[in-house]
């Protein structure tokens, strides 16, 4: 069936900020969909609040709304689009923006917005979405078509919940309805656990609904990625088997494609059931994910759930097979059938087939438990991982070892590295007991147990990990034992090849033989054991593949075709983690686009299946490989590139810079990068340039640290050198806390395990500038010395909150022009001194109009995409061209480098934090970065932009004038000056104020009325703050802690606010911004504008030179 001509424009809702359970896989799917629909000639309208995404590039849609993902805002967007394009019929494609997109589409449908504007839901309609999402409807539907479901019942309150558990019997699993990533889900084995988990589940569900079902923990888990077109053709794109059995959220499970331990008879039964499911649910077109549990002893098959949309698993399936699910889903939604769409990889065969693969794909999640002290680190039914890696090998052992070294957590593979010593002190029984609990360490523990001779059967009984997987691990263990009998000198070609085929890295072999990686590599190459690159081609080599999507293995034949043009290798950023996420993928993808446009062949190397960079049509060539020296060198030797870009993918590629051939490193030299990192060199440089720094020093011991603070005074910022995202940074206010912080760094804390304090890894101690304003600058310098400022960002939170966790604004709203000019000139001087060729990011602290430089990083920063969205200048593209030798003048002539959009708009970036996933951790901001993602608010006043950023981040500030609003305030002493102004602001908005005694006294002294004084923890009399919050008497909490170690009371208050879903502001600065925002929000009507409108030359019409509201 041909393309639908009765639709002219299509609205796509993105998934918003990166959060646990919803990461950049939806940028990948959304980007694919936008491209596919534009290709088809539709007007694409995109709504997404996440500025770090590639999909929100103005090039990918006709109208890009970086606006809050909120039903009222989306209604405004639809209204505006209909007004601006009255003749166009509009459709909404709800299945590409994750759970967020789906839920919002449902809201718009239920509120009648879609019907009112004549917008059709395509892909999946409201009935289908409800059938898949509503547990009860889903269960009924599946039972109706003869599929077995786990025994269960639904409850909307605790009374009913107890009744249901009486019928189903413990243990049970509790799942709240309409949640993403399994939030609030848990297994209860005792009545006490049941009370707790069911109660929390009811709170988590937006409709207070939980499903209570028989526990099928320990069963085998499978997922099928299914596609359907409007002619009712169905295909399975990929079937995935989980290494971790049921009981661990699939997002937290190691998963493998294709299925390994199902006979065809059983597999086809799952396939038939999955098709029956998608047909019954009624997903008319597109991709869905169907999850199954299979009893290991009886084969009983139970359907768990289906997602009527593209998902994290479909991104994985697309990368695992070369079948682009989101792109095809978009085309199916506008009327095509599968047989009308060509297979991109073979070009000759159609998309109506089921990929066959001739390799094994392994996905391993990456967690960030070290960021959340107090979190248990135990995996369960609620997803906790922040990223993932995928690897491809010809066999499972090879694939698994490659995946484990892709994680970048210091492991070289499945043990056989220094990290394995962690299990040495445990006895067999202790280790077996540890392995029986699912944690990130489990695969390593299993290998250690196999090495001690513990039988596969015993491990199976303890873990329910399939015996086949365990035996495959045992192959690695046995090979290691054999290799250990050899030495580097007497190992031969056959042994080396076998080892490499089982996935052993050169590092592992070097560890085993007590030699260096370089020597192993030299010996291996001399013996003729060289990497062979194979191709991901959707068809197991049955047809010729036109698309160079490669993975490494050790076989006879290599399939890389020689390049036609000069090639540039771009190293990606590896798995998402806190501190290094989608922003860096954005930069790598932009570099690839810009360099392709400039005539180079681009070669992407990355191992993150969620990203746009690992889409096979982003670059000319894609290598799905770990980002280690060995694996990257293999690609370099195969491709013989002109150069390698290491400075756009964050720390991952940057830390390889010193090892890779220096002549190949494009852009700023590694020695300049070191000069900025190295404390002594950096200090000397600042002194030479006469740029002030906060007083500080470098300490290798507690004595040295105390000597420094006695000189510079408190508070002091303490941080280890060479870390990312502010790992283990803290602000200390006295000697006692300095000693404690140093103790932790010396070996007791998580950082200590990674090497601890040493002369190579000293601790940096700086005077912490209290109440200073932090400023971030992104700029580009070319090889001729020409220089351009990308953006100057003023942070909302004061210095001391990690820049990644702080809100910031472009343009600066409070800094004076002379200060901004000074900052720009300092930046230019630093860039010149470091001979930067490409991007540089410099951070400053401004206190009482004095500017101090904090640090400089001559590489892409996390803020590059935000700056590009705010100004319309494609910084990453410009920088990548500059790295290849283009001058800024040349790029101006090409019109790649343009002047920033000059209108009166303000863009505010806000961080999104995962505290709801880690209820044990304190929800307070500090020098250690803990946000998973970011959003942007853009509007014509700073207040409105801030409000939009808050709404986008999920903080729904109570609006003035709607109902009686009560604010609870409890401020640290240092915040009390600004606090009075905040209090006055709230009163002007008509809010009531309740406060703790100290804060109340301060407010009253400043002439601000306080309605009630509440007691703190441990104080007697009066109403307690936590009670007030829990009772729902408070609509906003302002609570600022002092230092990293909050007093217990503050922590309780913040935790209560988190659990009760009451908006929480933890700095006085943010509260002040909220006051200004609420003031403007009450004053002006809600308006939405596309980025294309903001970016047009000359700025937003009616905005230049003054504040003006367009009518209409």
């Amino acid at each position, binding site marked *: *069936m041909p393309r639908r001509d009765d639709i002219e424009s299509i609205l796509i809702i993105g998934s918003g900020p990166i959060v646990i359970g919803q990461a950049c896989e939806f940028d990948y799917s959304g980007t694919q969909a936008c491209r596919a629909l534009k290709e088809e000639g539709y007007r694409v309208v995109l709504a997404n609040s996440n500025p770090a995404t590639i999909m929100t590039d103005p090039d990918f849609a006709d109208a890009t709304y970086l606006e809050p993902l909120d039903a009222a805002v989306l209604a405004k967007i639809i209204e505006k689009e209909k007004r601006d394009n009255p003749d166009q019929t509009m459709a909404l494609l709800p299945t590409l923006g994750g759970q967020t997109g789906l839920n919002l589409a449902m809201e718009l449908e239920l509120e009648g917005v879609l019907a009112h504007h004549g917008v059709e839901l395509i892909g999946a309609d409201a009935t289908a979405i409800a059938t898949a999402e509503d547990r009860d409807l889903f269960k009924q539907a599946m039972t109706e078509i003869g599929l077995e479901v786990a025994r269960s019942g639904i409850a909307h309150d605790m009374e009913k919940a107890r009744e249901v558990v009486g019928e189903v019997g413990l243990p049970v699993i509790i799942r709240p309805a309409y949640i993403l990533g399994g939030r609030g889900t848990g297994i209860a084995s005792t009545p006490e656990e049941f009370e707790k988990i069911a109660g929390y589940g009811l709170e988590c569900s937006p409709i207070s609904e939980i499903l209570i079902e028989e526990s099928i923990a320990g069963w085998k888990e499978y997922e099928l990625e299914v596609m359907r077109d409007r*002619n*009712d*053709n169905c*295909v399975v794109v990929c*079937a995935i088997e989980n290494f971790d059995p049921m009981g661990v959220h699939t997002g937290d499970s190691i998963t493998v494609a*294709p*299925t*390994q*331990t*199902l*006979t*065809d*008879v*059983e*597999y*086809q039964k799952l*396939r*038939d059931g999955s098709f029956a499911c998608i047909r019954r649910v009624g997903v008319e077109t597109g991709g869905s994910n169907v999850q199954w549990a299979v*009893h*290991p*002893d*009886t*084969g009983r098959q139970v359907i768990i759930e289906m997602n009527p949309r593209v998902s994290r698993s479909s991104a994985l399936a697309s990368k695992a097979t070369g079948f682009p699910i989101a792109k095809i889903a978009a085309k199916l939604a506008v009327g095509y*059938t*599968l*047989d009308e769409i060509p297979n991109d990889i073979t070009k*000759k*065969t*159609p998309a*109506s*087939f*089921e*990929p*066959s*693969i*001739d*390799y*094994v794909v392994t996905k391993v999640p990456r967690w960030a438990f070290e960021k959340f002290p107090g979190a248990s680190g135990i995996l369960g039914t609620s997803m906790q991982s922040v990223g993932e890696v995928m690897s491809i090998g*010809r*066999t*499972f052992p090879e694939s698994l070892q490659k995946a484990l070294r892709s994680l970048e957590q210091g492991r070289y593979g499945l043990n056989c590295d220094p990290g394995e010593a962690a299990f040495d002190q445990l006895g067999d029984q202790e280790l077996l007991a540890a392995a029986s609990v699912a944690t990130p360490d489990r695969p390593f523990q299993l290998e250690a147990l196999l090495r001690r001779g513990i039988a*596969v059967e015993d491990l199976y009984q303890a873990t329910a990990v*399939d*015996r*086949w997987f365990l*035996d495959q691990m045992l*192959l690695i263990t046995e090979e290691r034992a*054999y290799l250990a009998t050899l030495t580097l000198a007497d190992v031969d070609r056959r042994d080396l090849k076998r080892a490499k085929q089982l996935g052993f890295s050169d590092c592992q072999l070097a560890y085993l033989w007590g030699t260096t990686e370089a020597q192993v590599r030299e010996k291996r190459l001399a013996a003729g054991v060289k990497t062979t690159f*194979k191709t991901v081609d959707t*068809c*197991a*080599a*049955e*047809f*010729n593949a036109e698309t160079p999507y490669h993975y490494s293995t050790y*076989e*006879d*034949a290599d*399939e890389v075709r020689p390049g036609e043009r000069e090639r540039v290798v771009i190293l990606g950023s590896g798995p998402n983690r806190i501190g290094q996420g989608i922003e860096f993928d954005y930069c790598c993808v932009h570099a690839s686009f810009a360099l392709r446009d400039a005539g180079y062949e681009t070669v992407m190397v990355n191992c993150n299946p969620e990203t746009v960079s690992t889409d096979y049509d982003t670059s000319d060539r894609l290598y799905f490989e770990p980002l280690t020296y060995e694996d990257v060198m293999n690609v370099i030797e195969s491709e013989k590139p002109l150069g390698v870009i290491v400075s756009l993918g964050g720390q991952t590629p940057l830390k390889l810079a010193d090892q890779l051939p220096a002549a190949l490193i494009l852009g700023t030299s590694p020695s300049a990068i070191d000069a900025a990192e190295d404390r002594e060199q950096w200090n000397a440089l600042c002194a030479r340039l006469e740029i002030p720094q906060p007083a500080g020093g470098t300490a290798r011991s507690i004595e040295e640290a105390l000597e420094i603070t006695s000189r510079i005074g408190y508070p002091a910022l303490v941080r280890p050198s060479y870390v990312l995202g502010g790992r283990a940074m803290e602000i200390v206010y006295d000697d006692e806390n300095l000693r404690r912080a140093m103790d932790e760094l010396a070996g007791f804390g998580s950082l200590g395990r990674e090497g601890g304090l040493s002369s190579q890894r000293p601790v940096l101690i700086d005077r912490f500038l209290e109440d200073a304003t932090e400023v971030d600058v992104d700029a580009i310098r070319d090889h001729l010395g020409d220089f351009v400022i990308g953006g100057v960002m003023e942070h909302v939170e004061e210095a001391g909150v990690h820049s990644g966790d702080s809100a910031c604004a472009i343009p600066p709203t409070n800094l004076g022009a002379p200060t901004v000019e000074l900052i720009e000139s300092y930046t230019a001087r630093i860039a010149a001194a470091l001979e930067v060729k490409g991007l540089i990011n410099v951070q400053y602290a401004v206190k009482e109009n004095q500017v101090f430089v904090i640090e400089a990083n001559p590489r892409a920063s996390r803020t590059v995409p935000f700056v590009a969205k705010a100004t319309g200048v494609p910084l990453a593209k410009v920088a990548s061209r500059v790295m290849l030798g283009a001058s800024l003048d040349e790029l101006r002539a090409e019109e790649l480098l343009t002047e920033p959009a000059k209108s009166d708009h303000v863009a505010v970036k806000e961080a999104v934090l995962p505290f709801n996933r880690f209820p044990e951790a304190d929800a307070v901001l500090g020098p250690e970065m803990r946000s998973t993602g970011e959003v942007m608010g853009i509007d014509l006043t700073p207040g409105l932009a801030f409000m939009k950023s808050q709404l986008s981040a999920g903080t729904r500030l109570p609006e003035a004038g709607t109902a009686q609003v009560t604010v609870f305030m409890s401020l640290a002493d240092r915040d009390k000056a600004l606090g009075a102004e905040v209090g006055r602001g709230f009163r002007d908005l008509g809010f009531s104020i309740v406060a703790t005694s100290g804060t109340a006294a301060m407010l009253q002294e400043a002439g601000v009325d306080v309605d009630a004084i509440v007691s703190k923890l441990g104080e007697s009399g009066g109403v307690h703050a936590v009670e007030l919050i829990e009772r729902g008497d408070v609509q906003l909490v302002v609570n600022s802690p002092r230092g990293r170690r909050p007093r217990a009371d503050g922590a309780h208050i913040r935790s209560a606010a988190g659990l009760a879903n009451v908006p929480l502001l933890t700095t006085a600065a943010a509260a002040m911004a909220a006051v200004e925002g609420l003031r403007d929000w009450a004053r002006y009507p809600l308006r939405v504008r596309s980025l294309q409108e903001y970016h047009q030359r000359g700025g937003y019409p009616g905005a230049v030179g003054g504040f003006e509201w367009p009518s209409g």
Partner: protein
Amino acid sequence: MSASRQPRAYRLVLADGEVFEGEGIGADSADGIVSGEVVFNTVLSGYQEVITDPSYAGQVITFTYPHIGNYGVNPTDDEARRPFCRGVIIRDLARRHSNWRSEGDLDSFLRSHGLAGIAGVDTRRLTRHIRDFGAMPGAFGSADVDELQAAAIADPTTSGVDLVSVVSTREPYTIGSGTRRVVAYDLGVKSTMLRHLSELATVTVVPADTPASDVLASSPDGVFLSNGPGDPQMAGSIVTELPKLLGRVPIFGICLGHQVLSLALGGTTFKMKFGHHGGNVPVKDVRSGKVEITSQNHNFAVEIGSVPDVVETHLCLNDGALEGMFHKDLPVFGVQYHPEAGPGPHDSRYLFEDFARLMDTTGSVA
């Protein structure tokens, strides 16, 4: 070195001299040499069904999926009383199998049937070679390269060879208990096919050389022509007997059955470059526009447009090959692919129902 570290070093040599290193699995090869036509199959699951599919007589099967043997073997998944293929080529044989239905491991299964194999082969390189140069004879074993190449060149392949008589049943037998009565010509029939037929009818399975007169004498409601190995031109007496059945009784042919039916109707067949062997082949029913994902296993095919007076109902979307047809006047239809799907997807099982309907609406004139 432990014993397990001393595998039997084997080589695979193709007739064109291409050499692959590997190690022996399954039974020992007779005289150190096993030869046959080397083909590849792209299924991800179902190795046991593939190995026991009689259509592979005369061939050596390469599995493109690297891990084979993971879920062991079980008696119910066999497609015939024994394997008829000459050998198997794989990348990696599972040492330990895991599945609740499993009753043994693949290596022992191969040994028990005297079937040899070679593992450790870069099967992707081999597949690409066959894709580019066509299915060709090969030989593997412990012999040296020259001996193996000579054996490969000497192999009769599947062209111009009667393989049907090797695999067909010697004696007729009956299965099922339905009211309809079907005579099924066993040209190398798979048991899943018979299971589906027996759900519709009482099925008398007869040898491939059964005369048409014997069939008509039993007045069946329909005649079924099964799958089978090799060249339809060499399928024996069925090619000459079949015209006697046309128009006298409803006929349904699958795979080789479809090919001999086409020959009987006046069509022509040819040998493909490397055939279709897998479980993911898209076939379009041109009448409804619907696409079926099909299980396929054939090296020969019917020339498009060569069969007079038929409607070409099904086409392969990968290469346009003819996949199905029915006769405009006679109660006769056939498909090139495997609707019974053992292994493979179940999308096309409706064809057995179509056969039942055809029998029910067409009175036998025998």
